[in-house]
């Protein structure tokens, strides 16, 4: 059962270290990093693994970092990534320069014109952003949201397709209560100019970790699609926000339903609360019981 005792190569150690970092639950990568450092006992391997794993983790968890100089916050996502450590905040048209391993934003610079969408696109983007901020503010007590143009940002006017991504990221970290969790939504919205339709694709992911005297994790994922009409910037934005609100509200209700089904249906297929006989097991009668066990067994199965 014991693993071979041969010394691992640096490369193998680094891969293992990355696996630990990337599998850290929401908000726990720094804790995992601390334990990992002491298990590895090799700073070079750790630093190399961290420099590769942290950017990936930060983007996939869509972490939120504070911009220096009261510009607000920036979400770290692959959609806003300009370079390895530069992330666009479309809201403020600022670019955040981040330190991935420390998970802080060190500097901020204004975005260049080439990094921003055309005026035509920006009108749609801004309108959607305003609607989404309103929705996220209402629905998520600690939610952050960004709207990126990922295709056709230089389109100057009607006649061409373009595509936006709305990301919503809400994390709640309360390590003192042994509980962390995150909600991530990614909505792709294709503006199809020729058929005047907006196609929406949503990917929702919810995770929670409770670890007081144990380790229990929720991992839930859902994908959905919908469409709406291509209208003016303001009307499109309202339509998109209402589609997203509808699907996310439904998804939350289905999560609630999954939880409600647990005790009496789902969990029962693992272990019943009471035996099939609906009374506690007759341990006091085992001597008698073992004489008649064949019969009891048949009865037990028969029910």
């Amino acid at each position, binding site marked *: 059962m014991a693993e071979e005792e041969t010394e691992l190569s640096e490369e193998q150690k680094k891969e*293992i270290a990355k696996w630990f970092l990337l599998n850290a639950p929401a908000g726990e990568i720094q804790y995992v990093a601390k*334990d990992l450092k002491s*298990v590895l006992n090799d700073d070079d391997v750790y630093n190399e693994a961290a420099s590769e794993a942290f950017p990936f983790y930060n983007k996939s968890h869509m972490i939120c970092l504070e911009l220096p100089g009261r510009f607000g916050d920036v979400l770290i996502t692959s959609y806003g990534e300009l370079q390895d450590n530069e992330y666009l905040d479309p809201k403020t048209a600022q670019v955040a320069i981040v330190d991935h391993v420390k998970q802080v934003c060190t500097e901020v610079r204004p975005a260049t014109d080439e990094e921003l969408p055309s005026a035509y696109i920006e009108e749609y983007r801004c309108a959607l952003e305003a609607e989404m901020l309103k929705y996220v503010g209402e629905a998520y007590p600690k939610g952050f949201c960004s709207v990126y143009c990922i295709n056709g940002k230089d389109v100057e006017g009607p006649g061409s397709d373009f595509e936006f991504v709305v990301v919503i990221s809400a994390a709640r970290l309360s390590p003192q209560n042994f509980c962390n969790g995150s909600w991530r939504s990614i909505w792709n919205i294709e503006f199809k100019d020729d058929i005047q339709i907006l196609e929406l694709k949503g990917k929702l992911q919810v995770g929670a970790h409770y670890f007081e005297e144990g380790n229990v994790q*929720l991992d839930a994922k859902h*994908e959905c699609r919908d469409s709406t009409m291509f209208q003016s910037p303001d009307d499109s934005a309202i339509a998109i926000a209402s589609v997203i609100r509808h699907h996310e509200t439904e998804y*939350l209700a289905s999560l609630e339903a999954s939880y409600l089904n647990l005790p009496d249906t789902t969990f029962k*297929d*693992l272990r019943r609360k009471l035996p099939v006989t609906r009374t506690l*097991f007759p341990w006091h009668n085992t001597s008698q019981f073992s004489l008649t066990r064949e019969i009891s067994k048949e009865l037990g199965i028969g029910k």
Partner: protein
Amino acid sequence: MEAAMGLMRRMPPRHSETTLSALLSLLPHHSSDLLSQVDLPLQVLCDVDSGKEFILCEYNRDADSYRSPWSNKYHPPLEDAPYPSSELRKLEIEANDIFAIYCDQYYEGGISSVYMWEDDNEGFVACFLIKKDGSKTGHGRRGYLEEGAWDAIHVIEVGPEEEGATRYCLTSTVMLSLTTDDESSGTFSLSGSIRRQMNMNLAVADGHLCNMGKMIEEMEGKLRNSLDQVYFGKTREMVCTLRPPSEVAQMRLPDS
């Protein structure tokens, strides 16, 4: 070791085997500590004599062979392997028979195994194991689960008899994972493990099996309950904190 256990506590429970083998390869010198402190989902083998499956653990292992509680034979065969005394083996046989019925009544399927061995202080140790596959392709009667596993490990140290009573120290671990999957709600997956202890002084007159059985039944009930109510409940609370149900959000508006 402390850091290693910290990592065990944070990595997804469904990857516990990968986590452990990663830790074993990083910390080869702590392998026996790790193996004794980390519980993993149970494995089974089929007893060639009886055709029944039995559960593998550290307590029925010698070298690379495992002793079946049904035939008392090691698989694969092993010379000079340890066996319980004939008196303890008698209790072990009885325990296996009764525990199989207990397992059937609570789990509606599943595999159970009980192993016993003498310890150094005139008492003995018993290990009760249950493995249940509750998925719809396994033993899930209701067919709700895409994937569902429950593994329970109960180790009871039974002390020597003193004035008609004996001390029982029970350590129980339950590991479980369940996944439901349907088009309208996507995949919903919960997994976790918890471990608890319980000590009792009980009269020997009732018999060891009765005493141990009652403790295990009570403990399993508690563990199931706390997983269901407390642990799953906490993750549910977290979901509602992240995005409160709309009724709550609406109720807040008049207040603010």
